């Protein structure tokens, strides 16, 4: 689980009587999260379902999800880290000045009430979304929230879980962790994995122009990344694997159409709580699967001589 204090959604469904959503909008981005796991479900421990649960939304604006919550805390944009730090202090009865609280856009009453409820919960869970992990502070925000959840365990059971977005990003984390020990932003250029987001993360690598060939699979950076990164992708040979001809495919040197995962290609996908789910494709695609194409490209590379002129390359011929 990568060191997080977390649990599965099944536990949330059955036990969580105090639920915080921080910087996420499940009503629009994860539409069945409320009904399947958090709000609506009844269980042995929460026989009255919604009535047994308290739901808090922390966000910078009133999203559609706020309607479903009992308490809405509107934090000033970019002040999430400050708010979490203040909460961590107040949970431990440390002094916090009024100015410090005012900076977050909330009042002391709101925070004291929140902390009383958090401590009074039997099982608390904090879900955090992109509004927290992708704004000012980024991974430091996630770290602060995870620490707050961990520290709450001095009083009651508390966990935290990221609301992962599109497709199988959780799977990518898990697979990279399994294979290399790190979740993303990895370089093999010394022959062993090294991890350094900021140096090896894609946007930075592209903006600096530090790569001379890009292999893009199951993503469309040509539509989502900043312009200097896209310009670099157009400059170097880019290879794209995707079920559609995407923005990135148009600036790529090679595009290969593949079967869409879960619809026409079988395999495994990870849920946001890191539970693997088998995919049950309904269609048969005229295109090959990602897995098959990547394996064949890998084998074609392995058949070429390595840097010492060994043929084929040592690494794969040993397997």
């Amino acid at each position: 689980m990568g060191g997080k204090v977390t649990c599965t959604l099944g536990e949330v469904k059955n036990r969580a009587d105090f639920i915080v959503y921080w910087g996420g909008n499940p009503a629009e981005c994860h539409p069945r999260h409320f009904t399947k796991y958090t709000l609506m479900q009844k269980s042995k421990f929460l026989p009255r379902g919604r009535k047994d649960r308290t739901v808090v939304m922390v966000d910078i604006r009133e999203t559609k999800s706020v309607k479903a919550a009992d308490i809405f805390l509107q934090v000033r944009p970019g002040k999430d880290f400050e708010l979490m730090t203040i909460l961590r202090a107040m949970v431990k009865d440390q002094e916090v000045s009024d100015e410090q609280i005012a900076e977050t856009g909330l009042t002391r009453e709101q925070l004291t009430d929140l902390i009383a409820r958090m401590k009074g919960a039997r099982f608390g869970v904090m879900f955090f979304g992109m509004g927290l992990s992708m704004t000012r502070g980024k991974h430091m925000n996630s770290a602060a929230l995870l620490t707050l959840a961990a520290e709450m365990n001095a009083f009651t059971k508390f966990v935290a879980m990221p609301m992962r977005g599109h497709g199988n990003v959780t799977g990518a984390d898990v697979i990279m962790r399994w294979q290399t020990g790190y979740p993303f932003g990895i370089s093999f250029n010394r022959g062993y994995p090294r991890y350094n987001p900021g140096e090896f993360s894609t946007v930075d690598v592209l903006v600096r122009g530090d790569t001379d060939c890009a292999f893009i699979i199951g993503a469309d950076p040509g539509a989502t990344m900043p312009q200097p990164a896209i310009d670099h992708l157009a400059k170097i040979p880019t290879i794209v694997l995707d079920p559609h001809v995407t923005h990135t495919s148009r600036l790529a040197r090679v595009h290969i159409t593949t079967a869409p995962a879960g619809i026409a290609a079988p395999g495994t996908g990870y849920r946001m709580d890191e539970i693997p789910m088998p995919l049950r494709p309904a269609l048969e695609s005229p295109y090959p699967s990602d897995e098959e194409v990547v394996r064949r490209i890998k084998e074609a590379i392995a058949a070429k001589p390595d840097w010492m002129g060994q043929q084929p390359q040592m690494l794969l011929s040993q397997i």
Partner: protein
Amino acid sequence: MEMKVIEHATCTFCGCVCDDIELHADETRIHQAKRACVLGKAWFLNHTAEHKYPDALIDGRPATVDEAIEAAADHLYNADMPLVYGMSNTTCEAQKECVEMADLLCGLVDSHTSL
């Protein structure tokens, strides 16, 4: 037309990965996705098994998959610092192949998470 029913199908559109979807499909497209939400329905109903796009493109021209695989391998092999990126909308099996390929290339590997 004969409809195939797939029970407990899995939707991978968002991180909820609902595994209780009932799909009604014929040869080329999915007609119904029961229990899926609006986003999930759109995801299932928008994909077809039609041959809509060329198998592969090299420099913008249609090519066979074999040619494209060779071309891709050449580009990656000749690069000093190749980058493997993305891996959100794909299976774990393909992700594992990607990491292995990056290892073989002594390159970079990264996912959406780093954005």
